[in-house]
C-alpha cells in the first residue's frame, strides 16, 4: 500500500500533516510520492504559504 499513494491521497496526507503527526507508514508513503511528483511539491509549498499567510493574518500584519 505504501507505493499506492496518488496525488489525491498525497494532498490529503499533506493537509493532515498540519493537524496531527503522521505515522511512519504515512510519512514513508508520502515521501515516495513526493520524490516523484513535481505537482505535489508545488502544492506542498502552496499549503505552507497558506499556513504562513494565516499566521500573519492573525497577527494583523
Amino acid at each position, binding site marked *: 500500500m505504501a507505493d499506492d499513494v*496518488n*496525488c489525491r491521497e498525497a494532498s490529503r496526507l499533506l*493537509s493532515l500533516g498540519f493537524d*496531527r503527526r503522521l505515522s511512519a507508514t504515512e510519512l514513508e508513503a508520502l515521501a515516495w510520492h513526493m520524490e516523484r511528483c513535481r505537482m505535489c511539491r508545488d502544492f506542498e509549498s*502552496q499549503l505552507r504559504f497558506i499556513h504562513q499567510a494565516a499566521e500573519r493574518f492573525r*497577527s*494583523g*500584519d
Partner: protein
Amino acid sequence: MTHPRFAEIESHRPYLLRYALSQLRDGELAEEAVQEALLAALESVGTFAGKSSLRTWLTSILRYKVVDLQRRAGAERSRFEREDAPDYDDEAWLDELFDETGHWRQAPGAWGDPEAALEQSRFWQAFEGCLARLPSTASRVFFKREVLGEETDAICRDEGISASNCWVILHRARLGLRACLEKSWFERQAPVGR
C-alpha cells in the same frame, strides 16, 4: 487590571457593534458577539503586530463569533444545516480536482514569489474574500485552526464533529483556499521579472 491596548481595541467597539447588528439583527446577541470578540482579541493581541489593519483583524474575529452565535442560537438553523451538509462528504468535490486515477486534473499553478504578496494590502482582501467564499463550516474550522491556532481536538469538540470529519473539512478548506487564491490573486499578478 487593564490591558495596555484596551483603549485602542475598545475604540473600535461602535463599529464592531454596527457590524454585528447588521449580521444578527438582535441587539442582545450583537452585544454578546462583540464582547466575546473583544475578549478573544485582548487575549491574542500580543501577537498582533499590525498598525493599519487592527479593525480588519477585529472584524474577522467578530465574524466568526457571529457565526458561532447564529449556530448556537439556532438562528437560521435549517439554512446552515443545508449549507454545511456537503462538508462531511467531500468525495464528489474531490472528484472535480482529481481524475479517476487520483492525478490532478489541473496542475497547481506557478505562484512566483508568494511571500511578496504578504506585503500587499490587496492580497489580504483577496485572502479574506477567499476565506469567506468557502462553505461556512470549512471557513470557520479553517479560521479556528490556522488563523487562531486552536488545537484540532478543541475545534472538533466545539463543532460537535469527529476528528476525522475535522481533518476532511480542513483538507477541503485548504484545497478550496488554494484554488481561490490562485484564481483571484496569483493568476492576476504580472509575470515575475521585467
